[in-house]
C-alpha cells in the first residue's frame, strides 16, 4: 500500500518504465492501482527499433508484474516523507506479525 500511495502522488508526472523484457517506456503517469499496474499517456519507447510494435501507441496500460524498474523524477519526490512512511509501515507490519491485539482489530 505504501508504494501505491507513493505513486499516486506522482500522477501527472513524467516517469520511465524499464520492463522485464528490456523495453523502456517514457510517459506521463495517469493512473495506478494496488497491484502497481500503471497507465501512461504520450509515451515514447526508448529502444523502438527493437520493439516497433509499440511505435504507434500513445496511451498504454502496463501490468505491474512485468515492470522491473521505474525511473523517478528526483525533483518531484520528497524522500524524507517517503522514509517516514516506510518506518511507519514497517512498524505496523511488525506489530501485526507479533500479534499485537491493538492492530489485529484494524
Amino acid at each position, binding site marked *: 500500500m505504501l508504494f501505491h500511495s507513493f505513486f499516486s502522488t506522482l500522477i501527472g508526472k513524467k516517469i520511465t518504465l524499464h520492463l522485464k523484457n528490456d523495453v523502456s517506456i517514457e510517459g506521463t503517469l495517469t493512473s495506478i492501482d494496488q497491484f*502497481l499496474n500503471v497507465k501512461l499517456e504520450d509515451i515514447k519507447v526508448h529502444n523502438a527499433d527493437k520493439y516497433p510494435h509499440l511505435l504507434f501507441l500513445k496511451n498504454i496500460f502496463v501490468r505491474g508484474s512485468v515492470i522491473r524498474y*521505474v*525511473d523517478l523524477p528526483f525533483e518531484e519526490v520528497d*524522500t524524507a516523507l517517503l522514509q517516514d512512511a516506510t518506518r511507519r509501515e514497517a512498524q505496523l507490519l511488525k506489530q501485526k506479525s507479533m500479534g499485537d491485539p491493538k492492530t489485529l482489530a484494524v
Partner: protein
Amino acid sequence: MSGVSMSSMITEPLDLVKLCLDEQAYDQHLNMVLEDAKETVTNFEDDRDQVNDGEIGEKTVQTHSYKLLFVRGDSVVLVSPPKRA
C-alpha cells in the same frame, strides 16, 4: 550501539533489510526506492560450441546510473549493505 541491543533488534529477516536500506524506502515485497542507484550488467558471450573448450567468452560490462529508482520486489534476489569506506 552494543552488540546485545543490536541482536535483540533483529528478530526477523525484514529487520536485516531494514538495516541495509536505512534512509531508503521499502516494503514487505522488497519493492524499494533507491537514491543514486547504479546498475551493473555483466555479460559473457557464450561461445562454448566453438574451439574454446568450454572457456567463457568475452566479458562486457554496462553500467547505468539513476538519481531515483523504484525497483519492483519480485526481481530482487539479494539485499546487502553498502560497502563502508
